[in-house]
């Protein structure tokens, strides 16, 4: 069963909290994420993962008259935003929660776990029961 793990982060000064981090803290954070992805690949559970560009560039789009795009944003007042996601293929939901919990411990300043909120949602790809 596939799950999408969506990592949300609070906004800091400008877009990122990480703008205030020391280079070593930032490096440790990146290394943690790379290690997580490496482990998911070697366990055969990795389907995909992407980080998203900062919300300062985000636009909300709706179709206007004639279907032409009408854009809105960016929204500097947004407190929390989606930083990135993983899609994993695991044999039970609890395993997806474990992976999310590990991602949530990604280190921040001083190596302290950030405890970021990870929303876990099942991907609609389950087999149907026989009708």
């Amino acid at each position, binding site marked *: *069963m596939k799950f999408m793990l969506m990592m949300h982060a609070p906004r800091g000064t400008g877009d990122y909290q990480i703008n205030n981090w020391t280079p070593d803290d930032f490096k440790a954070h990146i290394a943690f994420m790379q290690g997580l992805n490496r482990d998911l690949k070697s366990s*055969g559970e990795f389907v995909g993962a992407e980080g998203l560009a900062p919300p300062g560039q985000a636009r909300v789009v709706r179709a206007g008259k004639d279907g032409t795009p009408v854009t809105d944003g960016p929204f500097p007042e947004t407190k929390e935003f989606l930083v990135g996601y993983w899609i994993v293929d695991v044999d039970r939901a609890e395993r997806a929660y474990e992976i999310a919990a590990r991602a949530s411990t990604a280190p921040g300043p001083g190596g302290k776990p950030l405890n970021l909120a990870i929303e876990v949602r099942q991907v609609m*790809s389950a*087999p149907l029961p026989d*009708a």
Partner: protein
Amino acid sequence: MTSVGTGERDDAVEQLLRELAPRVLGAVARRNHDFGAAEDAVQEALIAAVAQWPAAGIPDNPRGWLYQVAMRRLADHARSESARRRREEAVAAERAADWDTASPGVDEAEGGEDDTLVLLFMCAHPALTPPSAIALTLRAVGGLTTAEIASAFLVPEATMAQRISRAKQTIKASGIPFRMPDDTERAGWLRAVLHVLYLIFNEGYASSAGDTVHRSDLSNEAIRLTRVMRGLLPDDGEVAGLLALMLLTDARRAARTGADGELVPLDEQDRSLWDQQLISEGVALVSRALSNGSIGLYQLQAAIAAIHDEAPRAEDTDWPQILAFYGLLLRMTDNPMVALSHAVATAMVNGPEAGLALIDELARDDRVAGHYRLDAVRGHLYAMAGDARKAIEHFHAAAERTASIPERDYLITKAARLSPSRDA
């Protein structure tokens, strides 16, 4: 066979290799014990065969040919490794030498088709998670490429390659010998293999995910492998039962989805689209198994599928007989999904209230409490009872929790049809 075209000859070679590959792999792994190395060696032997046989002709003993080439490759690899492995090399080389001089009667000497069976048992090893067992079975026994398996399950090829390689390591680390199960193990091993084949079939038959062509290939592959099993264990009622269940289910494939891929439930299917040939084969298989006095979960499920398939119209379905079979099934398993189907059959025979009462009871079972299928069935039974409001409520509750898009769409459509009609 003098004037066979190149294309046909290639097809014949390919088909023969598909059939022989698991047997050769079983034989090599049985001697070498390193599943990964054995598989690599067999792959190389298969490649050599593809390169040579179409032009040079198929050897008299194709299986012995593949076996010997694979064993030689194993010896070559062992030889090229470090001194630490010299001992293994000697053993492997010696074994390869044995086979170089062996008589053509390799089949008899090595136990022949049993090797496929041992391989199936290994791939369904209890230490493996179902996704790993499925992947390994498709790779090692089915001969699908890693890319094909990855594409069927919509994961990157590298991920699938890792899953397969970890599965092999798990088997190796478990230290269980590569051999036929003894009498005490046999039933459990067999059950595990049949379960893996059943899961492969379901992935192909029932899934909404992925490329339809690849998905249905999985069902065909499951059927092919179950046929191989049946060839190996012709007297096993459950093997026959599983094959019958697959055939009787697959027979409805064309009727199961509408023009836009939407789900068509059994009672609304165009039965003229059902494959009568598969139905008669499945019915014959399950009838023979049951008349031999054997009984098992797959045989009973196949018997129920046969009753559905033999009804010319939905309203002709012999529900009392289906109910009786579900009663037998319930005595053999405490699977709550069987209990749910039993509740449906009860409703069809004794009315929706009787079915709903059983579901209320079932809802106290922690394993299924809150499962969307309980709500889906309740929706149907309330609709049957004429209570549209409650039916809509349960269809919506089910639609919110299913993880399948076609099923969600189906449930929402069901609810919408029951809604008070808007102005025409």
